[in-house]
């Protein structure tokens, strides 16, 4: 698709090809970074001592470094509370978002003429807001 009949005989590039290749180039760059991000090893695994022995070695899990039972439970419990309240908060967001849309549809739309509450009476009795 390159345009070989440009002025003074030199070949040039079409705008479409420049745009398409630019998009592909950005996608390749982001994709490459995305892929190498996936190479990351969860470093709890890297920092273990003797990871090949039975049970995964010293420091297999956070609980092994911290052997105070109630403290482990507290951290686990708060993880669960975070997830449960998070899901409920998301429900609240969606409920309010939808409720707002419904309320907005009842309002006068931008640029719409002011509706007269008593059917077009313009004598200014309603706070003198007739214009």
């Amino acid at each position, binding site marked *: 698709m390159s345009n070989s009949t440009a002025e003074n005989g030199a070949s040039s590039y079409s705008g479409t090809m420049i745009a398409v290749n630019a998009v592909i180039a950005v996608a390749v760059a982001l994709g490459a970074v995305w892929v190498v991000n996936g190479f990351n090893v969860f470093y709890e695994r890297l920092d273990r001592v003797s990871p090949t022995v039975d049970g995964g070695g010293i420091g297999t899990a956070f609980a092994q470094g911290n052997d105070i039972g109630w403290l482990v439970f507290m951290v686990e419990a708060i*993880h669960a509370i975070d*997830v449960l309240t998070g899901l409920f908060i998301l429900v609240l967001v969606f409920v309010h978002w939808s409720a707002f849309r*419904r309320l907005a549809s009842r309002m*006068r*739309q*931008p640029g719409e003429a002011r509706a007269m509450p008593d059917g077009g009476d313009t004598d200014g009795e309603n706070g003198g807001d007739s214009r």
Partner: protein
Amino acid sequence: MTNLDHGKFTRMTTVFHSLLAMDVFFLFFTGYAIMFNDELWWMLTLMGGSGSVAALHRVFGVGLLALVTFWVLMMVTTDTGRSNFREVLPTPDDAKAFVQDIQFVLGNAEERHPNARQFAGGTADEIPLLSYVGKGVIFIFAVELTLLSISGLLIWSKTGLMQYFATQTAAMAFVVFHGLLGVVMLMGIMFHIFEHGFHPAFFPVETKAFIPRSMIPESHDDDDEGTGIERLQLSSGWASATNLAGAATVIGIVSVLTASIYDTGYPVSLELLVGGGATNLLLTVGVNIGMLVLFFGMVLSVYGNLVRIRWEQQMAEGEGAEAEAEAAD
């Protein structure tokens, strides 16, 4: 101006709300720069590294302790505070209001329940001091701020804590607990910003949190049925702004929730960086969008106070003109 509804709160409450908001926003920015360091490393660097951020976090922590103590004292030692206790307690109507909100969204109810209604308009007499969400906010804040204050004081000195709990890992577990506890509030505040910034009648901010009720005229024609919201004009920017903010809020909540699952405080780092986990580009973008929502909330809080100052000036001018007219008579 569409966003001046009936006032609800005293000047003490509105000023307290603004101070608490600022303090909590800065606690979030400093605290989660540490906790979500995998995603917010730039924030930590921007504020001078982990040492500086931890120091700033402590400064705002002291501020929070003072604010919480002040609020408890005001609620216990004053008649107004004590009489408001009843207003804070959940009632069966609050549960009904939540159910009716879902029905309203599904089209099975015509109006939001009075305990859910943010825009009171002509129905102000039916509206309680706090909506069901408002009561939830107070409840969560009471529990969270108490636990955050206690765990925050416990981890103030790590070596002091290790004296009682022997290992560095145990001390770190308290740090993790403290950080995970705040995640509930972090998500709740994002929703709070959306809820009070994007109601179509109040967009871009619900001013009753900033303008005390003493400054808002309460008289109006009572001949209207319902809230009268249909007489208000929708802002032309509302739809796109709300879609953008709603999407950012959802992405922010989901991302900090996901990021928090991986943060368990192991291995124990030499610097105070709670991290570890499946950090990837998507999560990094998402958590940063969450911080953007918080930043936007901070801007809205400042804007609310700007609107209050302008309203104060307008009232003063009105009163000045009235006094002049009287003097002329």
